[in-house]
């Protein structure tokens, strides 16, 4: 039996204004969606051209979920986005060229070539770099929330995890601890219905993952992850509730992973009809038509935005390509932190 609340769609401009977004904000959301997909599409091409070593992951289908949640974050809030959450980096303001530099293993990537793909984050933007092991960052985000609670700061931590990773103990320990202490954390599940090739019914046996929230003593909400405005509104509610001392929320964003697990995977195990059905709910297309119907998005505006994004991407790739590869002599540098490393805004 489902116990989580099912979020309503957001329909009118008036509702959106109530949720705190004006027209310029909406256009920024649109830009972020396009940029998110653009970075990953262009990255995929670079990968095929052999310019990106290792593997390559995209969050196609998850753009609205990641952009919607990140748009609801406050400037001092923090989070631990994962491999489907490029939109979070984009909304928080990462410079796209640094992402391409990261993809290509260059020194100007946030990890300076020490780690690949989306295993990166800019601390100054309130983000902590993910590790591969899922969902090991979830207890870390809970710790950020604990710090806010200890210092009585009105800040919130966002902890992302996939529905597959919900099967691991870190999810339980993190949520249970956050529940006992009513910490200011929002758990965001990117439920794209597949964990590599494993379907949801082999990962969990409850109806919604958000139903589990009740067992941890907080609220669960299921939202259509292809509807950026609905995601935004629900994330905003959850974040503000946490900020005001109302404890955690588990927000489950329903999407479909629209490509293989990574680009090597043709996803032949996903039924064709499933892709066809979800393709009709493409998050970018949905929001574009919503803007045209409800916010008078014009052809000229659309063209202008598309042009800007294209230029941003081309400039970014060019600049990233100019960034050097790391010097092998630096291999052993920086395993241990020095006291100066603590001299950062976030460590104070």
């Amino acid at each position, binding site marked *: 039996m489902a116990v989580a609340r099912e979020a309503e769609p957001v329909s009118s401009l008036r509702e959106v204004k109530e949720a705190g977004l004006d027209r310029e904000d909406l256009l920024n959301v649109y830009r972020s969606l396009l940029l998110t997909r653009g970075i990953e599409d262009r990255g995929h091409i670079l990968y095929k051209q052999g310019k990106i070593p290792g593997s390559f992951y995209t969050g196609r289908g998850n753009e609205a979920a990641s952009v919607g949640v990140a748009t609801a974050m406050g400037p001092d809030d923090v989070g631990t986005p994962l491999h489907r959450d490029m939109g979070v980096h984009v909304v928080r303001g990462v410079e796209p060229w640094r992402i391409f530099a990261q993809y290509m293993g260059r020194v100007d990537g946030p990890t*300076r070539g020490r780690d690949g793909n989306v295993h990166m984050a800019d601390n100054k933007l309130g983000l902590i770099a993910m*590790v591969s092991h899922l969902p090991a960052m979830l207890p870390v985000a809970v710790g950020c929330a604990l*710090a806010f609670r200890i210092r009585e700061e009105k800040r919130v931590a966002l902890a992302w995890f996939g529905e597959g990773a919900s099967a691991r103990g870190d999810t339980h*320990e993190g949520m249970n601890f956050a529940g006992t202490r009513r910490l200011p954390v929002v758990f965001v599940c990117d439920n794209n219905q597949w964990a590599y090739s494993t379907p949801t019914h082999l990962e969990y046996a409850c109806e919604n993952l958000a139903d589990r929230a009740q067992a941890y003593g907080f609220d669960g909400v299921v939202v259509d992850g292809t509807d950026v405005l609905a995601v935004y509104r629900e994330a905003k509610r959850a974040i503000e509730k946490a900020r005001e001392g109302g404890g955690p929320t588990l927000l489950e964003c329903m999407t479909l992973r629209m490509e293989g697990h990574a680009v090597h995977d043709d996803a032949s195990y996903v039924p064709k009809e499933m892709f066809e059905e979800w393709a009709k709910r493409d998050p970018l297309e949905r929001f574009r038509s919503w803007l045209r119907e409800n916010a008078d998005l014009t052809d000229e505006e659309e063209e202008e935005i598309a042009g800007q994004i294209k230029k941003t991407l081309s400039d970014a790739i060019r600049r990233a390509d100019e960034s050097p590869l790391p010097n092998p002599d630096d291999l052993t540098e920086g395993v241990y*932190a020095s006291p100066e490393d603590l001299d950062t805004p976030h460590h104070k």
Partner: protein
Amino acid sequence: MAVKTYLQAISDGLRQEMQRDKRVYVIGEDIGVYGGAFKVTQGFQEEFGAWRVIDAPLSETAIVGSCTGAAIMGLRPVAEMQFADFISCAWDQLVTVAAKQRYRAGTAVPIVVRLPSGGGFSGGPFHSQNPESSFAHIPGLKIVCPATPADAKGLLVSAIEDPNPVLYFEHKHLYRRIKDEVPDERYTVPLGKARVHREGDDVTVVTWGAMVYTADEAAKQLESDLSVEIVDLRSLSPWDKEAVLTSVEKTSRALVLHEDTRTGGFGAEIVATIMEESFESLDAPVKRVAAPDTPVPFSPPLEKKFIPQVEDVLAGLRDLAEY
């Protein structure tokens, strides 16, 4: 200066740091109202409140993982494992997250995990282990193993100050047995600097933690025949190669002693380093005395056989002297 137990020195050092630095908090199972399984944080909750002396659920992953998050947010967490053995449940958070964050993402993770370790009380396979070697193998972690009350305090302060994840192994068999003078004021003992526990000319014993006292007893018994130098490493990562090599070059004979099991133990690293760097000055092959490769057994005669005893060290020293 006052005479304190090893346990009291840890407790006082921790309390002083919490008084001095509001960013320091402690978290663990039963550490608040109850004061911890070994009472290291007795009275802390009254003094610092429930949000700086945090009773956590039985969740080692959440304890250590949350310390990482809080540290990145600017706090200085000190986690207590109820027993060092339970750190296995937080392996991933230490090894996968905390240890690698500086190297790959440039983010310092200043956390301390306190680990009551070691055997000698029929704690059995799950309450007696010395897992320091496993972690000494992990780049990005620091490992501290104090042997004396004064070091226990000074190394704890250094561990809290350090910008890295530090595993602080406190040996349970030293808690109340070992007493010594401990300065009242705040001071640090640097990580990576060994201490010569006993000076000697004929053989060097390299060891740490409770085995310092086992070695000391053996050295006393041989006093009239053999002059034994005991080097207490104090920390395994970083470890003081210089001090070890200097001593070995003086004595020309070395015995490496640890309570952890033998194969792949940290002693092997020390022996290999001596062979690589001071081979020419050796008059005998370096000897290892360590626990056999078994889990720690429960029943007293088995456990006694498992943990290196004074007689084992004596036999090793005699072999070396006679070589």
